[in-house]
């Protein structure tokens, strides 16, 4: 006993430097600092790339004015990405270009981190271990929130520093104060959704439930601000949505620091309620009533593939709804968004991303890129779930029955591929429903084909994920999501135009032709499917030969 303890201390010399009173804070802060720095770099680089790309594409004042005139008052884009009041300046364009994306990513980062650290730790039983130390539930929850604050500060600091450095360029010219305020706006959703996630962690019975509740709230916030910005005369609604408050901060164009008040108030109230609920409820229980007893429902439980479907069902249904809604929304706005494009310099921006043509099809080309990302998220989530079964030891129960590893993995991949294919088909079908209702004149076959076109990039990421799962199972999620994030970053940053082919080629989304604005590149798609399958086979062989590894 004492020997193991000593060995442990020698291997992890930092472990006994934490005071037992603040250990939860210290552990959380260490994890979140890393994460905040990483995402801060990603935030900063996206700011840098959009500012620089603007200065290289729109060189003259006339071009910039044309862009602002064509695009600035477009209700469809304003509904999707927020209003674009300052397109004639670098700062205004940059704020428009990155704001909505970073706001959403920030919110997801916040809610996923906090639910993992609060509810996830509780699900795994580690939380009880911490609580048996010198701390109470309430204090420990507050400490986790404090640790996350460290991450948020890192996120803010890096975003700010890179924005300031970008602003030093005389062509960009963003002042330090504006940059600091802008970075604050970009992390505001992260702050609010950390609080929301802390609250849902007390309400839900599991981490998945907690994260789903928070994500549903995020979806509602987005929908409310979307209606407010759609130019149908209800802009006041913007004050009902936390995302709307951030929008009202109007960084880099027309700053309105008063909008910080609801943000701060909301965060403080929600976080306090979360902490006080944490002190009141039992560990591993939820505040909302949830069913403890249930009549046995044995459907899908006769086989391991049925079990896999049943376990991923709640998440999958959520994704399918998200795909249907986004397909429909994009379809609905494509025509009006596209009508301002023809002949204007905005087609320049789209063409830099690889979208050709004019009108609705050009817009849809870029919309399908966003949906490709969603489909990839579905695939990555399935693989994480499979690794989760192994990490938590549940897979042991399946693999000690007469069931081979290869066939189990084959089943999980069958589930993953079916689920993401349904998502991809939905993208095509619902986009068509949307466009058809607006008489945008884009054919059903063409949109369905564009949906199918989303599958190959996902298969590459899934394949690489399976390979990682075979070789370094503990890295499965990290590698899969890192590749996804990288691919995304490259296509976003790629519109600078100066990026080397070698780097561009590493992005699966760059390999994908932006159908329906251009025809799918079936040759490239074939190669991607081949790479995906080859990686998956190698991963499967490695999985067969390795140890099962618990977390």
């Amino acid at each position: 006993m004492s020997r193991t303890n000593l060995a442990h201390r020698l291997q992890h010399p930092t472990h006994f430097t934490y005071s037992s009173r603040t250990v939860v804070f210290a552990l959380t802060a260490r994890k979140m600092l890393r994460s905040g720095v990483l995402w801060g770099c990603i935030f900063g680089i996206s700011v840098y790339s959009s500012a620089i790309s603007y200065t290289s594409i729109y060189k003259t004042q006339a071009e910039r004015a044309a862009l602002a005139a064509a695009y600035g008052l477009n209700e469809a884009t304003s509904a999707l990405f927020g209003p674009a009041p300052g397109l004639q300046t670098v700062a205004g364009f940059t704020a428009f270009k990155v704001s909505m994306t970073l706001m959403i990513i920030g919110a997801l980062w916040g809610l996923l981190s906090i639910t993992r650290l609060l509810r996830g730790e509780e699900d795994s039983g580690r939380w009880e271990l911490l609580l048996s130390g010198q701390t109470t539930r309430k204090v420990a929850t507050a400490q986790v929130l404090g640790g996350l604050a460290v991450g948020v500060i890192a996120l803010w600091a890096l975003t700010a520093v890179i924005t300031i450095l970008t602003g030093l360029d005389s062509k960009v010219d963003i002042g330090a104060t504006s940059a600091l305020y802008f970075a604050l706006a970009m992390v505001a959703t992260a702050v609010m959704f950390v609080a929301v996630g802390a609250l849902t962690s007390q309400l839900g019975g599991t981490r998945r439930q907690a994260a789903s509740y928070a994500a549903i709230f995020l979806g509602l916030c987005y929908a409310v601000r979307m209606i407010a910005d759609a130019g149908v005369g209800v802009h006041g609604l913007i004050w009902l949505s936390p995302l709307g408050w951030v929008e009202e901060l109007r960084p880099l164009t027309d700053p309105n620091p008063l909008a910080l008040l609801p943000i701060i108030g909301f965060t403080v109230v929600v976080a306090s309620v979360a902490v006080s609920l944490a002190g009141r409820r039992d560990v591993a229980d939820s505040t909302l009533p949830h069913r403890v007893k249930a009549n046995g429902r044995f459907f899908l439980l006769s086989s391991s593939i049925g079990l896999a479907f049943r376990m991923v069902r709640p998440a999958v249904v959520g994704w399918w709804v998200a795909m249907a809604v986004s397909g429909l929304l994009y379809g609905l706005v494509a025509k009006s968004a596209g009508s301002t494009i023809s002949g204007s310099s905005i087609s320049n921006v789209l063409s830099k991303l690889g979208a050709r043509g004019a009108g609705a099809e050009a817009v849809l080309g870029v919309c399908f890129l966003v949906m490709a990302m969603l489909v990839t998220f579905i695939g990555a989530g399935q693989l994480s779930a499979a690794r989760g079964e192994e990490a938590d030891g549940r897979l042991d129960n399946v693999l000690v029955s007469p069931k081979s590893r290869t066939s189990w993995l084959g089943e999980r991949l069958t589930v993953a591929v079916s689920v993401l294919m349904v998502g991809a088909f939905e993208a095509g079908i619902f986009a068509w429903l949307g466009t058809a209702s607006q008489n945008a004149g884009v054919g059903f076959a063409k949109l369905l084909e564009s949906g199918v076109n989303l599958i190959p990039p996902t298969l590459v990421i899934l394949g690489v994920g399976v390979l990682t799962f075979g070789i370094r199972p503990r890295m499965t999620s990290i590698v899969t999501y890192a590749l996804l994030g990288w691919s995304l970053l490259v296509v976003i940053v790629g519109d600078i135009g100066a990026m080397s082919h070698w780097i561009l080629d590493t992005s699966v989304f760059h390999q994908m032709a932006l159908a329906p604005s251009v025809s799918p590149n079936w040759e490239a798609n074939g190669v991607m499917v081949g790479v995906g399958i080859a990686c998956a086979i190698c991963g499967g062989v490695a999985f067969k030969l390795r140890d099962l590894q618990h977390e």
Partner: protein
Amino acid sequence: MGSMAIRTDSLTKRYGGVTALDGLDLEVERGEVVGYLGPNGAGKTTTIRLLLGLIQPTEGRAEIFGVDCHRQPVEVHRHLSYVSGESNLWPSLTGAETLYLLGRLHGEVDENYQQELIDRFDLDPSKKVRAYSRGNRQKIVLIGALMARPELLLLDEPTSGLDPLMERAFRLCIREARDRGQTIFLSSHIMSEVEALCDRVGIVRDGKLIEMGTLTQMRHLSALAVEATFDGVIPNLSNVPGVTVTEADGQVVRCQVQGSVEPLLRVLATAGVTRLVSREPSLEEMFLAHYGAGDPSGELDHVAH
């Protein structure tokens, strides 16, 4: 099919620099109940996971009923059930759903026996796994393994979290399984459990099998247990040849005697003993004698001087 239920041949597992299991040679006959004892971190779980083919051996090989555990795990799994001490189940399923699933995964279930086990272990199968206590989760895993009536049961600290009443139900089930001719390999750190159930016992420590034999053989190998109560000053027994002090509690000293008891009797005769009990040592005492000697606690030192 070979006649041995389990056979390993210098089975070794290393994790980087750590040798979790070191050249294990083990043979278990069909129908035997074998106990596998060792302190935490001794290598018990590693052994069982190697037998199941869940982890790959660094060296050596293992067979179950003559089938190689690593080349043909699926074939091996047809004949066995496994109970892990950690009971990792699906939190969103109910007990009944979990048992149904485990049954379907294994293929064969004796429905009547399943119901009997549920009654015996006093399990309410309508609750969700997330709402069960640790002991109740363990019951589900146990029922799941027993209800398949496999030829071999691999049990890794199966009674963790069970209360004494359920521990008794468990022992009854194991005896029945033995009477039915099933082979049982039971890893445990609870001596009394192993002592009550097993024909043969192996003791593992630091990845090495250091003893293997029937309970009788082990007792023979080991010493006589002596418990002496003193009314005055306690003499220093640890210097007496052949004597190992295992426990000292106030005026009572428990020790083990290897070889002749004469030297001990000579010391005791002059020391004012009010009570003297001598009997065959329990497994627990043998265990303590084995490991206690290498790691004398301050308490024992204090008594000795």
